[in-house]
């Protein structure tokens, strides 16, 4: 274990966690809204926003899946030290972290059951391109319509089609974060 794997956590856990959660709550409650997060820094390739989300929401009770180049020794060590989330296979994950391409195929992730739709994975799609072609969003949390660049709109359309089942997505890049719950309809 090196110094860089021990550093980059919250300075004041209670305050940093509270501020980060409020930002994530606002993003999830208002799909299309981009918020800024910068309380935690992990080893490459995890973004500052995704690292902050991990420390805000994940702990030893939340199985985490690492996909693609996010599954590396340095990041595993950093996660083990800072939030202790057990690293698991995709089908067992409560949270999954990776680039969009690395997270494929998405049908590996839990979408909940009709009786317990909350038992579904939250995908943290890191290194997302917020500058891409925006999709039009409607649904709960959105006044009229909102716009947000998506990695592949068809996947989100298919995910919404099985509402109330489905995964929920948090999109991160650098310090920026947006969220797309399964309730959002893509036009």
């Amino acid at each position, binding site marked *: 274990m090196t110094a860089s794997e021990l550093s980059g956590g919250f300075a004041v*856990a*209670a*305050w940093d*966690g*509270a*501020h980060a*959660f*409020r930002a*994530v*709550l*606002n993003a*999830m*409650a*208002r799909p299309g809204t981009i918020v800024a997060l910068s309380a935690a820094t992990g080893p490459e390739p995890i973004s500052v926003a995704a690292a902050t989300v991990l420390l*805000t*929401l*994940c*702990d030893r*009770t*939340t199985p985490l899946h690492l996909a693609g180049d996010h599954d590396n020794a340095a990041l595993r060590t950093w996660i083990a030290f800072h939030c202790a989330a057990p690293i698991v296979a995709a089908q067992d994950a*409560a949270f999954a972290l990776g680039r969009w391409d690395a997270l494929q195929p998405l049908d590996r992730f839990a979408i909940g059951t*009709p*009786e*317990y*739709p*909350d038992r*579904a994975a*939250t995908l943290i799609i890191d290194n997302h391109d917020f500058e891409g072609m925006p999709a039009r969003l409607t*649904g*709960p*949390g*959105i*006044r009229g319509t909102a716009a947000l660049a998506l990695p592949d709109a068809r996947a989100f359309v298919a995910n919404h089609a099985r*509402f*109330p089942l489905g995964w*929920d997505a948090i999109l991160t890049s650098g310090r920026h974060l947006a969220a797309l*719950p*399964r*309730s959002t309809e893509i036009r």
Partner: protein
Amino acid sequence: MTDQAYNFAYLDEDTKRMIRRAILKAIAIPGYQVPFASREMPMPYGWGTGGVQVTAATLVPEDVLKVIDQGADDTTNAVSIRKFFQRTAGVATTERTRDATVIQTRHRIPETPLTEDQILVYQVPIPEPMRFLEPRETETRRIHALADYGLMQVRLYEDIARHGEIATSYAYPVEVAGRYVMDPSPIPKFDNPKLDDCPAIQLFGAGREQRIHAVPPYTRIRSLDFEDHPFIASKADHACALCGSRKSYLDEVITDDAGGRMFVCSDTDFCAENAKGDA
């Protein structure tokens, strides 16, 4: 002053993360009741333990907190919860709706319209709208899974058959975003229209029943009714005896034992502002 013997906002960070995860799933599935591992709080069940836990997981140090009990800022429940968070979170508090960023409420929605910068946290006794019709949790889960809400329509119909109208006056069931039927907590049905298309985030916490549900901003909320018996948001047909308002929800106050009574605003902040001419 914050009591240094406690973590910020009383709860430990593990508990707050667990509640925060439940809140996010509740937002993602509007109206669905997410189970959570409710903690024992330093107050009895029925005094808002669910709302207090949701508020504790939501607060940031810069928040301005308002707490109301049946619309009033100055009743025992509201005062003690406000003091609890003053002491354990060190947050500023207010009685003015427009100055608050987080409002914890028992059984009312403020009269002053809420904004996008506010979060409304409800204290919920029984979150399951079907519970008095179907006591088995396994069955109510199936009802929600299948969206098989005929039983609730029958209950409202029986009201009409017996009383000539839908007599349910509080905890009036609503349909959230066209899917889940939700109990909006025992708010008067007068408040139901304020749930609909509300700019604020609405979070509901039931401590004893261990459930959190939520309504995101600008979500369609429809009070269940029939074409020939449409929903009516009723209130006492009087003006407030203190501020004269005819549009706010009124409490009936018995003033003597000879039949004397008066009607006053249940929302004390609205009443005081209205009396000053500011509302």
